[in-house]
């Protein structure tokens, strides 16, 4: 069996191949990056206008909300860079392209992830990092190597949370084949509700978006920790602190679910 180092090297080669494929259509790629960035930033501008007009929302200042928004967007960018192809899972299974992944000495899910690179994820990433950069100067945080390290972990963990949810939903496709609308809807819930302090939500929704759909773990929990806003949390603070770990845990569970469900794969034609 392959060593981990070999695996990573193969993975990078596959990712490189998909990047090369993408840049066969260069003009498209550039405009996708730019429009991706603008798309995400306009969402933020709307919030900015509201907060600027009303000074704060749910007890959070403009800088704090910007920070939260930036964290979520960066996580989403990483998620999208690594896992965008999950949105193609239906098609990959229906057309039988998944056959090919099963024939190669590499986990099929990794081959799906590296199938193609959606370059507009760089728009999210750049937009998210810009917001984080602006906000980190304005928020009241004593930056230390530890907080920066935690931030990096948290942003990665957030991407894993979104990835885990989409993997689990995608694995339903092995049985039902058409789960696209479900996945798009859930993704939209993350996009809409993940960017705001949960203090503006009713209690029931707070719990729903924590335990039924783990939106809180993507950005709100770790942002509360970094900004030292644990006062407004609806759960014990330690649960917020371990958000990155929750991301890893959910992701491992999701991988198992995927493997279990893939036994139901039916290929195409017989």
């Amino acid at each position, binding site marked *: 069996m392959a060593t981990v180092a070999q695996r990573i090297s193969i993975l990078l080669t596959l990712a490189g191949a998909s990047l090369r494929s993408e840049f066969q259509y260069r*003009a*498209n790629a550039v*405009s*996708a990056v730019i*429009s991706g960035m*603008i798309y995400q930033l*306009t969402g933020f501008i709307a919030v900015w206008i509201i907060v600027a007009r009303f000074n704060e929302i*749910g007890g959070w200042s403009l800088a704090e909300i910007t920070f939260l928004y930036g964290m979520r967007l960066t996580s989403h960018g990483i998620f999208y860079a690594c896992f965008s192809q999950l949105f193609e899972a239906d098609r990959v299974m229906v057309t039988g392209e998944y056959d090919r992944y099963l024939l190669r000495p590499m986990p099929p899910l990794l081959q799906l992830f590296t199938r193609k690179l959606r370059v507009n994820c760089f728009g999210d990433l750049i937009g998210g990092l810009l917001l984080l950069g602006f906000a980190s100067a304005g928020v009241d945080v004593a930056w230390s190597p530890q907080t920066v390290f935690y931030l990096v972990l948290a942003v990665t963990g957030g991407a894993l949370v979104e990835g885990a949810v989409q993997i689990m939903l995608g694995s339903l496709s092995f049985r039902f084949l058409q789960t696209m609308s479900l996945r798009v*809807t859930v993704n939209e819930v993350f996009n809409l509700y993940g960017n705001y302090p949960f203090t*503006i939500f009713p209690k029931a929704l707070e719990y729903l978006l924590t335990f039924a759909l783990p939106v809180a773990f993507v950005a709100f929990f770790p942002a509360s920790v970094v900004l030292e806003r644990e006062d407004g949390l609806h759960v014990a603070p330690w649960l917020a602190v371990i958000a990155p770990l929750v991301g890893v845990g959910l992701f491992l569970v999701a991988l198992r679910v995927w493997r279990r469900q893939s036994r139901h794969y039916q290929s195409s034609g017989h």
Partner: protein
Amino acid sequence: MTLARNLDALVAYGRMATRRMYIYRFNVIMMIVLTGITIYLLTLLWKAAYGDRTEVDGIPLQSMLVYLTIANLQLRFLSPEMDQDIQERIREGQIGFDLNRPVGYPGQLVAGAAGQMIGLLPMLVVAVPIAFVAGELRPPASVEEGFAYLASLVLAWLVAVQMNLLIGLVSFWTLEMTGFRMMYRLIGNFATGALIPLWFMPDLLRSIVQLLPFQAIAFVPVSIYVGEPATGGIWSALALQAFWAVVMVLVIQLVWRRAFRHTVIQGG
């Protein structure tokens, strides 16, 4: 060709579009659910922004919430997608057939959009309850404003359809317009006032938006509905919409003539 025969043909285009709407009803329902999710979030956001206040700048919280609900619901129903159809037809080289039909191409498209609109109306059965749960629905401020809203809605549709048509005509010159269309949609999101009504926009942004036609699609009719019409009351609000509807007719005439010539010379 007589007017009656022309009309018959247009009605046929409308019917076809209605049928197509029915085929895609599952997608439409999904879009409505997404709209409901958006409305709910906006409601929460603005409630939090108002905080303990019941009124800001003379706008009561309740009017604000009704505004958000109606504006976003209405936008879902007033979003024609002719631009994509046009692009598709041109890419597949089918546009020649469309141009050779006895009814003018813009006429075909507008009739199609009308049919699509009519096909969507039964979806109100799903959409209104969703909006009711997600946001805040109240009857219009008064009977008079209710009727004015209906008139304003028709004008809003005319502006929305024509703006979309105008964007679609760009693909007669270039097919690479994904980025362009996205920009249009984003500006549109802001400038229609569906996320932030013009009342609450920063002065600079508001003065720019007031010069654009987008406000006629959401802000003008919905502000009439909640009884807070913009400067000068109901009549001047309707006049503003009518002005934009007419301007769009003229612009489209102009652009269409050029697009047609361009296509004929290039051979489609």
